[in-house]
């Protein structure tokens, strides 16, 4: 279980990283925290000719406040976000989500950009950032572009990213004072990927809600009907029947046991949001 042979470079900046990726024509892979890529290399499931190590690129490492959003570099680790608790007003949810990823050793290295690019269906960031309405900043040889987080992941381990592109940052809108979020995942043990997960955002003043479920066969799924019902009726809309129906509609391929688990998890996320 040792990796097949590869070359390794540590580019000076993002532009060089993009160029290296472009030149390799699909034969290169970015290496960030290595927490997903490492095992894939060792199992020889990934066999790039070239590894482009961006783990130490300063351009990817910042956390900055913008007017209405927090901009988090793609190379920021889960641990850095976890440790920012108390210093991210309007985005405390990110600290809570980060603290629940894997365990500390993985969080010390794993990055938000790597997690989004890897796109494991059960991962935390694709779900949380979709629910929060975040944007993803992408950088390639021909410039930068932005994609909404809930459109970036196309399916299991597939994202909207060209061969030369890097996840440069995510931009997470600051929540208003009255907004509440809910995040619940069920893992068989601490540090495991979840069996079922759900995220919800509810702004009672603006009467708006966003609800997503994760740990499905593909990307996190939006639950628009339930979001609308909660925006309308609040706690009254959060019932077991409603979540069962919503899960069935959003993920019809689930068997009865998975449906039951996802519905229970969704209900718990919603209850966090509507609880007075």
């Amino acid at each position, binding site marked *: *279980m*040792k*990796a*097949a*042979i590869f070359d390794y470079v540590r580019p000076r900046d993002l532009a060089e990283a993009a160029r290296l990726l472009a030149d390799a024509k699909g034969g290169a892979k970015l290496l960030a925290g290595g927490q997903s890529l490492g*095992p894939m290399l060792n*199992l*020889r499931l990934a066999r790039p000719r070239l590894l482009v190590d961006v783990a130490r690129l300063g351009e990817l490492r910042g956390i900055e406040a913008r007017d209405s959003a927090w901009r988090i570099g793609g190379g920021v680790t889960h641990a850095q976000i976890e440790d920012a608790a108390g210093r991210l007003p309007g985005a405390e949810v990110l600290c809570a989500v980060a603290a629940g990823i894997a365990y500390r050793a993985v969080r010390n290295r794993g990055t938000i950009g790597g997690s989004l690019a890897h796109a494991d269906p059960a991962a935390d960031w694709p779900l949380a950032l979709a629910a929060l309405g975040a944007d993803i900043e992408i950088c390639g040889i021909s410039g930068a572009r932005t994609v909404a987080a809930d459109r970036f992941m196309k399916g299991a381990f597939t994202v909207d990213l060209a061969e030369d592109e890097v996840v440069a940052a995510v931009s997470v809108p600051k929540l208003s004072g009255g907004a509440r979020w809910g995040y619940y995942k*069920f893992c*068989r*043990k*601490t*540090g*495991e*990927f979840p*069996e*079922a997960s759900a995220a919800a955002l509810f702004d009672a003043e603006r009467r708006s809600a966003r609800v997503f479920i994760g740990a499905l066969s593909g990307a996190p799924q939006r639950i628009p009907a339930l979001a609308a019902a909660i925006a309308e009726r609040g706690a009254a809309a959060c019932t077991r029947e409603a979540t069962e129906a919503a899960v069935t509609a959003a993920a019809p391929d689930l068997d*009865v*046991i998975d449906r*039951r*688990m996802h519905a*229970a*998890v969704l209900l718990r996320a919603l209850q966090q949001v509507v609880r007075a």
Partner: protein
Amino acid sequence: MAGQGIGSRVQRKEDVRYLHGRGSFVSDMMLPGQSEVAFLRSPIAHGRIRRIVKPAGSEDAVFVRADLASVKPIVAPSTLPTYKLSGQHPLAHGKVRFVGEAVAMCVARTRAAAEDIAERVEIDIEELPPLVDAHAARADRSVRVHDDWDDNLFLTINYENGFEAKAKEAAVVVRRQISLARQAMVPLEGKAVLAHWDDRADQLIVYSSTQTPHIIRVGISQMLGLDEGQVRVISPDVGGGFGYKCVLQPEELCIAWLAHKFRRPFRYVEDRREHLVAGANSRQHHYALTAYADEKGHLLALDAEVTVDGGAYSMWPFTIGLEPGQATGNLPGPYDFRGYRCRTFCVATNKPGFLPYRGVARTGVCFAMELTMDAIARAVGREPWEVRHDNLVAAEAMPYNNVSRKHFDSGDYRKSLLLAKEKIGFTAWRARQRDGLPDSRRIGIGFATYCEQSAHGTSVFAAWGLPLVPGYDQATVRLTADGGLELRAGVHSHGQGMETTLAQIAHEVLGIDLAKIRVILGDTGQTPYSTGTYASRSIVMAGGAVANACKTLLPRFVAIGAHLMQCAVASARFADGQVVGPQRAVLLRDIAEAWYLRPERLPPDVDMGGLEATVGFRPKVDTGVFSYASHAAIVAVDTEVGHIEILDYVIVEDCGTMVNPMVVDGQTMGGAAQGIGTAIYEESPYDANGQPLASTFADYLLPGPTEVPSFRIYHLETPSPYTEFGIKGMGEGGAIAPPATIFNAVNDALRPLGVELAETPLTPRRLLEALSRAKAPTAIGGKAA
């Protein structure tokens, strides 16, 4: 020096190097010119090898069975009736019989380069129908794991003792189907072996991560056709054994062969994927039990059909007979009943060959028996602890010969259960259970009691007619010139703390400071012969030998000491680590100095054996001494998602006289953590093609620190009448009862919902499936026929 002997909680001598990361494992070793080996393993569960093509340019770096023609296959005979032989070749020969079976070995300077070569080896295998399910394999004779057999049965055991007569008296009959998943043992360190040829010693030196260096030496010399004197096996630091490393491994033979043939060092280190795939070799039993009881729940008779999914090969030297034999013999558990019938089938399937995992069969039999005990309690409408209590062998009945002719030496089984019930706070939890938890999870209370044959001796193993029968153990002790002690034993220590506990026994007899006692283990070149460390035997057998060897030196000390004091030998005695005469005393250091450095001071008739002795030990009754324990758990069951949380866990154990209670606690905790793995997490599933579905830790879950509760451990101490100091073995016990305890607790919680689970591990999916199958809340009561 006070408080270092038997019963002292002294810190472990070995922990200094482990905690500083200075242990020396095979993976740490690097010899000049060393090559690394990667095995190419079968991707197919069952098939006939048509062709293996070595990659062009790397022909010299690839070896297949034909290249190792001089190496004998591993064949483990047994005289048990119906037992069939299965030859396991060091590399697959003719057929492959499980996914992960080694087919070729590839050699290079680095492991990665060896894997590059392995990728380029072409293997052409004609697929045969795989035998994946033991029941199906038993029924089907048309496809066979071993072509020269006429069915797929390694062994069938029929046991009967007083069954019909006792069953007739029963008022209540309870039937259950109970099963355990297949598991890997997952030691921190997997297999690892490094061998080289030492021209000066004219010896093959084999470093192997093994529990049993002496028997591996016997095995390598037999299978490779070398004189035993030409083989030295050294087991350095070993990162856990659990039974995985107590048998001769094909990889050991392969690496030894390479080093012998090419006269240079070769190393193989198993990786985690290899372990999870080729090491999925334990626990998988199925039980169909019918229990016959009176209206109060007193067990009268037990009828059992046990199926062991034996995998493809029988291991050397203990044979696969160990597992069905232990299952049949130990199923009656710690209970007092007189009617027993058991048919046990050990079935060959296309999976890795069964190995004896910590607890050997007893985790399975305890699971089956204890779930049945709870089922009986429900059928008669009594508390499970109460029915269990009434069925346990009473202390007054000891020593007790049970229905399967096991001889229980001593203990108060009932007391352990009552103490566990008290310590877990049974009455308070029953009340809380009625009120319910605020978060709507269901509370359950579970108990399990077992007794465990430890330190079996010759008569047990000889009855199975093994190729190599364990018996006595020996230890060598030597007082050094500065008054320290060197202590050598052929067992090994891989987590058990024996460098400390064997020293404590020597200290108990000789009074030498523990810091001055060096314990040397794991090297056939340095230690007397022993079959090694397994079956909870080492502290009894090697500990007994250490005590005997130390005692042998005492009269020699007294004779020299008396001479130095110029008093009569009869007027001197050994006490508190010195020889005491009428006027004064001499230290061991003085005696040592006289023997080694100033022999002119010795008495003229001094014993030429000197200050060194090798002495053996065999228990007075060698059928094993029985440790036992009662476990109690409180669980909270989340019926929405299928999650189980262990809220509290109490263990009351009795392993006779404790040499070091802290080490006993540690062994108990480690075992119990593995038992929780069996109960809730660990499983090596296979698909219909015999493909293993859990090949990384993403799919094979182990309990971690957050899943293992803080066990509350209590000790009883009933000495064994048959061993030195009354010590009993206890290395395995912790792993035996947790699955039974946790399932009984979960079933207790779910009883109002009409749900009863009996299949490990208790995954969320299994739990939710059972809940959705449950019909009426009364279904359980109705099950008792």
